[in-house]
């Protein structure tokens, strides 16, 4: 079902993303998930197909368009590619670049953005720390000004694309305690004192690498500071609405894929003399799954339109959309495994993978509980 806010351009873009994913991702999906990595060259190939720069200004090598185009393409990459890990890995710049584009100087934008959108460099965002996750204002990684440099000490964890990133947009503490003491700074690979401590093993998203990063007396040029000192918290916040829309859209695509897999399985798999789709219990399961997806999609589409139109309710609705889509995804993937029975519990079955991937979404990009805090606050109670 085509979202109501999409037009012929979106349809064309979806078709191109589908074609790319069918030839470049799907045949390797199982292998890359098991390898916990996809080839680095895929960034350049996706960039050449016009799939990395969607939603970024053409002046910095982007493809133009907005968040509606970006999510349309990423949904098709998931639906057709089936490797969620690969798609989120390819998209890690989606959270790393916006702070640079929104608050960086012209020189910073020209230096950092085009190589990433050409697929030559990998970008990651590093906010979470071993002792500070949802509590962003509590980060402890410190950056102390020393002449033309900042000296960074601390660590970051759960960093998507972190093991291979060429540039990391890092949240650091430059001032006092709380949100007013945070800055954003770009740390480039190879900077002395910056290292990848370890590659983390996860429940899902296997094909996407996730890292723990260490900064030990890491000297970063002050020219890499994004925006004003101690104003980083706003750069982080400004990012959140689009990030939540991306995550809600991921959930819609994942649950849609799990649903499609379940429908074809239910038609094929026979029990007690007929396909299991012939049993009301299965049909009703599928009907509930389809309904959850339709509801999540409708809300997502509504928020996308409001966000693009500058509607003040967008931040609240984006938080709601993320929770609704997350719930739909968890429910649908769980039911999909149930419909597949023993096969659904086996490695190599698509829904088994999606079931694991789905578990990230109530946690990443703001937990389900934090979303509810935001909603409660914006509702005024």
């Amino acid at each position, binding site marked *: 079902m085509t979202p109501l806010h999409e037009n012929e*351009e979106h349809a064309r873009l979806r078709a191109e993303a589908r074609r790319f994913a069918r*030839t470049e991702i799907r045949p390797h999906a199982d292998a890359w998930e098991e390898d916990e990595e996809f080839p680095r060259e895929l960034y350049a190939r996706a960039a050449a197909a016009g799939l990395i720069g969607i939603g970024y200004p053409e002046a910095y090598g982007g493809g133009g368009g907005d968040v509606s185009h970006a999510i349309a393409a990423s949904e098709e990459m998931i639906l057709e590619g089936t490797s969620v890990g690969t798609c989120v890995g390819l998209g890690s710049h989606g959270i790393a670049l916006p702070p640079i584009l929104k608050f960086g100087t012209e020189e910073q934008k020209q230096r950092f953005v085009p190589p990433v959108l050409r697929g030559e460099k990998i970008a990651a965002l590093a906010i979470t720390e071993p002792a500070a996750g949802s509590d962003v204002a509590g980060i402890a990684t410190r950056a102390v000004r020393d002449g033309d440099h900042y000296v960074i000490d601390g660590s970051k964890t759960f960093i998507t694309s972190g093991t291979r990133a060429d540039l990391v947009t890092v949240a650091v503490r430059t001032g006092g305690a709380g949100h007013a003491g945070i800055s954003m700074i770009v740390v480039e690979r190879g900077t002395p004192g910056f290292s990848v401590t370890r590659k983390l093993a996860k429940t899902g998203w296997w094909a996407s690498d996730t890292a723990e990063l260490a900064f030990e007396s890491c000297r970063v040029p002050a020219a890499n500071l994004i925006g004003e000192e101690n104003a980083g918290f706003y750069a982080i916040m400004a990012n959140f609405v689009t990030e939540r829309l991306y995550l809600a859209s991921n959930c819609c695509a994942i649950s849609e894929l799990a649903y499609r897999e379940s429908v074809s399985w239910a038609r094929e798999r026979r029990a007690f003399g007929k396909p299991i789709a012939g049993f009301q219990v299965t049909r009703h399961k599928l009907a509930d799954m389809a309904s959850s997806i339709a509801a999540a999609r409708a809300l997502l589409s509504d928020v996308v339109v409001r966000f693009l139109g500058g509607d003040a309710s967008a931040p609240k609705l984006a938080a709601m959309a993320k929770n609704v889509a997350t719930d739909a995804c968890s429910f649908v993937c769980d039911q999909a495994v149930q419909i597949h029975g023993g096969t659904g519990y086996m490695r190599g079955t698509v829904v088994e993978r999606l079931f694991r991937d789905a578990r990230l979404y109530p946690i990443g990009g703001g937990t389900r509980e934090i979303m509810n805090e935001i909603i409660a606050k914006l509702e005024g109670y």
Partner: protein
Amino acid sequence: MKILVPLKRVADPDNANKIKIAPDGAKIDTTGLEWKPNPFDEYAVEAALRLTENGATPKVRGGEVVVVTFGPKEADTTLRQMLATGADRAVRVDTTDDALDGSLVARALKALVEREKPDLVLMGKQAVDGDSNQVGQILAELLGWPMATFAATLQEEAGALLVGREVDGGVITLRVKLPAVVTVDLRIVAPTSVYSLATARTHKYADGVRFSALPAIMAAKKKPLIEVPLAELSPDTSLRIAYSKFEPPPVRKAGVKVPDVAVLVDKLVNEAKVL
């Protein structure tokens, strides 16, 4: 070089199970079908683009590619798709899908060629729906132009094309003087299949039809697309081919499991009578 690429929209082969036949068997019911360009015609567009550029800087056009299709207003989508891929202009010959056959399309294309005066008509060897494989050949005959079919490679020379045709046991290379009609086969989109005069022989293309990025998709909306009534190109719109009846292939019967080879051989000899 100016190249005219005729293309046809076909029902998406991935949705073959959705194809329905009208109850009276008179025609295929096209409602609800998703359309896509005939793959061989897409390959022709890709080949035409390669012939009108230098490989290294695809945005620098060294010629013009005009795409044309026959159909109702909705067929504009197919043309816009090819404009997004890189074609410069589009023409839609206004008609309905089922009032056409290869001969009528070729007659109308002849009139369009006389208007547009391309150096080359490049098209798919056949459409994947009817598999007729006629239009290129009839058009060349009507125009009195040289023709090469099933091209797997193309190399531009001054005023001519070297066309490689894959045949049993080897490749036949033809030198075709322009203007000409050339139909293409699937390997025309391999990385080293097509070279314009301006393309370095060391250049390798990405395999397949190029992707269209969002800026190209947006720009395609502004590229010229004109509509021409079919009767203006061919006052005689009569068909040479009449379809008498459509019917779906017989439903495949369920197979049987055989316990051992002896029973299998027995069935092959006595039931299937193939041994």
